[in-house]
């Protein structure tokens, strides 16, 4: 038995104790991997930002530090791809609906801000929009999950 199998068995037994079914356990495992991918990406992005803003890197290392968060993005997307394709059809529908709702809400807010910017109110930055989209996505996910599972 290799290290990966041992890890999965440990996680599986924990999830079974929590009352999970096989598909649920599979989704939970993929969700953990995805969450780990998100955290890794967020941590590296934050470290990169801090290092560049505080001029903690020598000139030689500026570009590698700038590129590192971009270079790790495929890992993040791959983790999400595996998570999405590993779900059953209802979970996939919930994810899809939540993404559409979050995207729509973000476009609405962005359009509103852009219109307000014409009368002197500052436009939102990319970070604000991404944060808004993440919150909207989380709320939409909760709403959709309750809708189908209550």
């Amino acid at each position: 038995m290799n290290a990966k199998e041992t890890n999965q068995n440990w996680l599986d037994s924990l999830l079974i104790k929590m009352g999970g079914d096989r598909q649920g356990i599979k989704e939970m495992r993929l969700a953990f991997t995805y969450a780990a991918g998100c955290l890794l990406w967020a941590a590296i992005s934050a470290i990169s930002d801090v290092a560049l803003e505080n001029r903690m890197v020598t000139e030689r290392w500026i570009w590698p530090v700038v590129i590192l968060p971009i270079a790790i993005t495929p890992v993040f997307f791959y983790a999400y791809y595996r998570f999405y394709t590993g779900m059953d059809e209802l979970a996939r529908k919930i994810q899809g609906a939540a993404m559409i709702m979050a995207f729509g809400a973000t476009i609405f807010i962005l359009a509103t801000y852009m219109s307000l910017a014409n009368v002197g109110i500052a436009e939102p930055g990319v970070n604000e929009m991404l944060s808004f989209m993440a919150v909207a996505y989380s709320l939409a996910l909760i709403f959709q999950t309750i809708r189908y599972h209550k």
Partner: protein
Amino acid sequence: MKNILKILRAQHDLSQAALAEQLGVSRQTINAIEKGKYDPSLPLAFKIARLFERPIEDVFQYKD
């Protein structure tokens, strides 16, 4: 769509979890189908009908 999944499941003495296991979906999906909140995809509908050895139109009825 209306369905008789809950009746069929009771007839075969299957729990939602056991049925979900056999179909390769989550228990929540079975629950949502039974409550009529979610219409399954055609492949899943066929799988359900085949599992209970019933024609698909017996298990799922389209309501206007």
